[in-house]
């Protein structure tokens, strides 16, 4: 038992942080979405990420992947979350698996090579059919109109062509860095699909969403604390006040809980533990609650600045909302958590 990153994993963390700072900085993201380019990640940056192998990191080597574990992907996605990188990282990584395990290795290679795949957020649980096709009202996150989107349920994950949907309409997303469409499914069969017994795509998704949210919590903790140290009012740094210091401490606890549970969830999936579903859902629920608390706490600590468009905290608030509605909603996961057997 060891939850410390290995030197190889530290390398993943460091190199991804460097890449994100260089290629997908928040300043650059702001330029892109202010000019209307959504998702607010440049094509060059996306391709560069593909070249780094980000979309094949967790794919087995015999599926043309790098063969790392889900825990390695957690470390990468935590950096992506911390730095607010936009774009369908989550659904693209999962889509490469669906295509490969669904028997379409060529498509998988294409996706791993940089073809973006958006994510389907169903309006109701029955909007996704048993075969992964879309049969009701959905929203599409970061979908390309001529591309594919990923559907995910507890039993199946599938890739569906956007062109097969009807009433595809772009609508502004609460997260301004993200492209959103509404659409209605027509029941056209998916391009590729994989059952959860073959590859637990939904659980991997929960864990990676938890990792993204963990990055948001850590950013909030660090940003709030830094402000508490530097901002002077009444001749003292505001961090001397327990009304500031204690929420910062709570953020530190929440960040550590979200991080450790994301790893626990990832390793549970990697190792095929009997309680993998419980641990993965717990990771998402824990990280979502932590991120709701931490973004709100940091916004409050920042005072008026936190309420402005200029400061980044509102972007983290809005991304948090998006990730808390990915693969369902916290209330839904809690309902499932309670039905599962006691964790081992």
């Amino acid at each position, binding site marked *: 038992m060891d939850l410390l990153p290995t030197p190889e994993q530290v390398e993943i963390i460091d190199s991804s942080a460097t890449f994100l700072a260089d290629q997908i900085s928040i300043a650059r993201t702001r330029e892109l979405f202010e000019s209307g380019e959504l998702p607010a990640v440049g094509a060059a940056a996306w391709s560069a990420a593909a070249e780094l192998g980000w979309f094949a990191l967790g794919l087995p080597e015999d599926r043309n992947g790098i063969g790392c574990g889900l825990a390695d992907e957690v470390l990468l996605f935590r950096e992506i979350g911390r730095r607010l990188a936009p774009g369908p990282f989550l659904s693209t990584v999962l889509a490469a698996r669906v295509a490969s395990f669904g028997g379409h290795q060529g498509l998988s290679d294409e996706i791993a090579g940089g073809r973006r795949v958006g994510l389907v957020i*169903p*309006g109701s649980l029955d909007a996704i059919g048993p075969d992964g096709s879309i049969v009701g009202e959905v929203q599409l996150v970061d979908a390309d109109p001529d591309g594919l989107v990923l559907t995910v349920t507890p039993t199946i994950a599938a890739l569906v062509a956007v062109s097969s949907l009807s009433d595809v309409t772009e*609508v502004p997303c*609460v997260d301004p860095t993200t492209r959103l469409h509404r659409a209605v499914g027509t029941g056209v069969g998916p391009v590729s699909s994989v059952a959860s017994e073959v590859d637990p795509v939904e659980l991997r998704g929960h864990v990676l969403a938890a990792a993204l949210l963990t990055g948001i919590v850590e950013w909030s903790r660090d940003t709030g604390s830094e402000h508490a140290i530097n901002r002077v009012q009444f001749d003292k740094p505001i961090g001397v006040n327990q009304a500031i210091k204690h929420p910062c401490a709570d953020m530190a606890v929440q960040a550590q809980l979200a991080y450790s549970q994301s790893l626990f969830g990832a390793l549970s999936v990697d190792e095929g533990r009997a309680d993998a579903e419980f641990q993965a859902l717990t990771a998402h629920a824990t990280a979502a609650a932590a991120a709701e608390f931490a973004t709100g706490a940091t916004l*409050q600590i920042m005072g*008026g600045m936190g309420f402005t*468009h200029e400061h980044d905290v509102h972007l983290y608030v809005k991304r948090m909302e998006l990730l808390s509605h990915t693969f369902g909603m916290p*209330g839904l996961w809690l309902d499932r958590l309670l039905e599962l057997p006691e964790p081992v």
Partner: protein
Amino acid sequence: MDLRFAAEDVAFRDEARTWLTANAPTERRPKLGRAVRDYDLAWQRKLYEAGWGNVAWPVEYGGRDLPLIQQLIWFEEYARTGMRPIDTRFVGLAHAGPTLMARASDEQKSFHLPKILKGEVVWCQGFSEPEAGSDLASLRTKAVVDGDQLVVTGQKIWTSFADHSDYQELLVRTNNDVPKHKGITWVICDMKSPGIDIRPIRTIEGGADFNEVFYDEVRIPLANVVGDIDNGWSVAMSTLAFERGTAFTISQVQLAASVEELIELARSRRSINGRPVIDDDSLAKRLARARADCAALRSLTYLGISKNANSDQPGPEGSMMKLHYADLAKRVYRLGIEILGTRSLAIPVDEDDTEWIDKHLIAYSTSIGGGTSEIQRNIIGERVLGLPR
């Protein structure tokens, strides 16, 4: 003790409701540009002409000097129209105006007060600075006397509607050699003066009501000083007692109305699992709690009004109401998001849903603006309970 209103108060409520029903604007208030000011001032002129310019102002300044209970009734009825609690008229009517009444010279009063009440001018506030938030008295915007003028250089922030304003109640530092509260001057700044640069601040929900205001050797006649040079802190504090909490009623009544709308929304919408949202006991209980909390906030207001009607000094209910309101508003509008579920991710799907998203985002400010909740807790702890600083 009595919850019932006296016969004349009931009659007054009827009068107010009848007039408001017939006269409140039916078209939506514009969100941007000069149209905002025009809309608000047209409404103020209409109010003024019907004798509703400001029910709390003394008769000598054109108001009706209504007793506190009728002010409460007026604001309760006003809230029903759905008009915003704070618009471009707010600083003039509820802050700068009352300050002028309390502390300005006769010339200043007779020039400014009628303009405010008649809807001819918009006022804004110039108090906060980037380095002076909760610690307002540490403000640095400098004013030097030069002949019969003050020359002002510095920066203000969080000035609502600065771009729509004619005048500003401005706090400046005129003396650096005395304790920080003692070197501040309260002055009327003409917003068309040369040297003023206004830059809007975009906020979390996309609004742009707030501004930064920069002053580069802006010249203001000494005649515009209210009170004395270096005595501005006491002038700024002199309006606290005005209205004694009644105007806050608008926000409160509208929050309670939001809870009722959310209960309806939860009854009409289905959750992602196909069940009506209201069937989720955890959401239902939080809605019920919000309903109860709104009712309790109203009873607290009534208690505060009862006390204040018998006292010149407002009681601690002001800070208590603000603190409770902030916490409650955040909880209520968070519920809105949860009721919408995944629909809350799309902003303009339909106008109603968008409104809930905006209200949720704006609610983040309720515990910051107008004195943070942390400061309110300090005030209650120290002034009400006598806890040490």
